[in-house]
């Protein structure tokens, strides 16, 4: 237990490049214990890059990432995961040739076996669809079911910090609602800290304690979820585009 005032995850001045192309231009974000923090922004703003940089792939060229008092900016990815960070990556990177159950086992690699049954039950409670399909291979699931599996697998590692990259991608409206409810519940009941990247800005901001807006690799606006929802610029850019 480090002192409670220090943030669980602290990203400061992080710059990331793909070759010579700058993706992140000095990003500062703090995520405190027990918080849901969301990052919204247009496609190509660098949201997923930040998420991947936290996990050490690609690496930050400048700046520092501190998790729970440990500098993880130069740590190998598998060691970062051991510290209790789990990610549900964008684009459903599940193991297509393993069954649903085996995928969940992979998520539980770092966890004591005694928790396994309870944890699997919890994932199946959250996603009854996965229970129906538990002996099917991951690759034969529909797109949305693969998304559920990716989130379930991340939960299996009993993370302290959960990184979710577009959890609502390709999911039916009803399921999206359930997923956001689940995230809220996990946060409330189990104190899970969540860092959430979303296109679905309305849902994300409603759920989050704090939000940040990213434009072109930089944070341009920060505030509580409710504040950002009310901001005219945010509404215009991320909420109301679909309306006349």
């Amino acid at each position, binding site marked *: 237990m480090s002192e409670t005032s220090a943030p669980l995850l602290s990203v400061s001045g992080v710059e990331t490049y793909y070759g010579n192309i700058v993706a992140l231009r000095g990003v500062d974000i703090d995520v405190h214990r027990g918080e849901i923090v969301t990052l*919204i922004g247009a496609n190509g703003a660098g949201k997923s890059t930040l998420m991947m940089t936290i996990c050490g792939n690609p690496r930050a060229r400048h700046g520092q990432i501190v998790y729970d008092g440990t500098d993880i900016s130069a740590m190998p990815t598998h060691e970062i995961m051991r510290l209790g960070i789990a990610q549900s990556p964008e684009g459903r990177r599940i193991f297509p040739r393993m069954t649903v159950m085996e995928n969940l086992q992979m998520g539980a690699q770092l966890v004591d076996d005694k928790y396994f049954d309870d944890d699997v039950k919890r994932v199946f409670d959250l996603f009854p669809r996965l229970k129906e399909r538990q002996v099917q291979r991951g690759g034969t699931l529909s797109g949305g079911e693969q998304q559920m599996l990716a989130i379930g697998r991340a939960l299996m590692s009993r993370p302290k910090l959960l990184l979710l990259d577009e959890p609502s991608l390709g999911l039916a409206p009803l399921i999206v609602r359930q997923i956001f409810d689940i995230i809220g519940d996990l946060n409330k009941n189990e104190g899970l800290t969540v860092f959430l990247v979303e296109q679905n800005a309305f849902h994300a901001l409603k759920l989050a304690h704090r939000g940040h807006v990213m434009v072109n690799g930089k944070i341009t606006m920060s505030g509580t979820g409710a504040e950002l929802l009310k901001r005219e610029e945010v509404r215009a850019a991320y909420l109301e*585009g679909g309306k006349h």
Partner: protein
Amino acid sequence: MADTKDMTAPASTGRAWENDAVLTVEHLTMRFGGLTAVNDLSFNVGRGDITALIGPNGAGKTTVFNCVTGFYKPTEGRITMRHGKVSNDFIERVTDTGERYRVEGNAGVYLLERMPDFTISDKAKVARTFQNIRLFAGMTVLENLLVAQHNRLMVASNFTFGGLLGLPGYRKARQASMEKAIYWMERVNLLDRADDPAGDLPYGAQRRLEIARSMCTDPHLLCLDEPAAGLNPRESAELNDLLQFIRREHGTSILLIEHDMGVVMEISDHVVVLDYGEKISDGDAEAVRNDPKVIAAYLGVDDEEEIEEILEEDAEIAKAHARGEEVSDDVVMPEKAKAKSKAKPKAKKAAPAKARSEPVPAAAGATPAPAMAGGLNAPRDGKGDNLTRIKGIGPINEKKLNAHGIFHFDQIAAWKAADVKQAEDYLAFDGRIKREEWVKQAKTLAKGGDTDFSKRVDKGAVPSSRSGKGKGGSK
């Protein structure tokens, strides 16, 4: 040519999918081993329509796409693509012969389930995009669009030899392909990235490039698998414009799978809803949106409605302040709501997570939903109250409450805290019932009184509610 005479009447009613279909799917069944992904599905895609295929995850939508575009050979069923006006008689004759397709004059019938996948795009003119983007990531944007025109270039170059010699026919074709590629890059706003590798584009741009690539094959039918996934609302709106442009300027019919209801409801002429491989609803966007089966299985509570209500409330406050009126209790509510909504997560989320993880009843519209405390089997005197006179209840929520046996104001007025929570869970409203004081409003209304809001409803001034005191005007 005789076939074209007895074609069905032109689309005078505006329902092209009934009168002038470009694609007909009949009794389509697809089994994988013991798993039936699609079961006896029939639907039409109207010529020049934008048709949406929606449904919960795993309902079989992508499987239908894979059957239509030849990635799978269906277990049973017939999938017919029609070019020009084609009579049913013509289709039956082609089916009987065992041919894959036949063209007579301007009319062509293509039986897609018999055709190898590469001829489907080439001859039947069906193009598609993919749920998980499948571009040639290492090729540039321009090259991706030229590859799409590979067949034509290959023929024009006499299978390479003419190209090597630089014959005029090939040079012309090359020029034309280039122009078409440039045209589509302009349309999808990627001209300035023409020479970047496709894999380096952001997600939204890759989706647009996939659409451009399909359009380079000059399809009659464009199948899009979740084109708006991963797009924010503004980008979705741009996508809407692009799809409408394609339909308007190129006459291409569009079949799309999409979860973004903003896209589906705004641009579709026709919506088909699948659940567990079967069709549960079929009709225009408005009809499907209000279909209780679709709401139960798929939509849940409408977000747009919620956003609109929030905006409406804000506008009300602003108006009231602008008039400098004594702000009445009712109108000031949202202010209180903000205070209350801070307290609300505790009330709601302290409840065990299980409460909400119960599986959602699939297609509950068919069977009556479990009644709530004090719920009735039918409204007293066969007529319920107009619940939309309570602020916060729209027609959709009214329908849901009715399904739970709630028809009258006095029933809501009698709700205890636990009932409110149950209702909130069911409607997926975090604390809204409490925040908007439904119970208090219901008490007033049950006594025959009026709130400011209900007065406005009675005047017909609230678009999201029905006017009238009884249940009368309901659809």
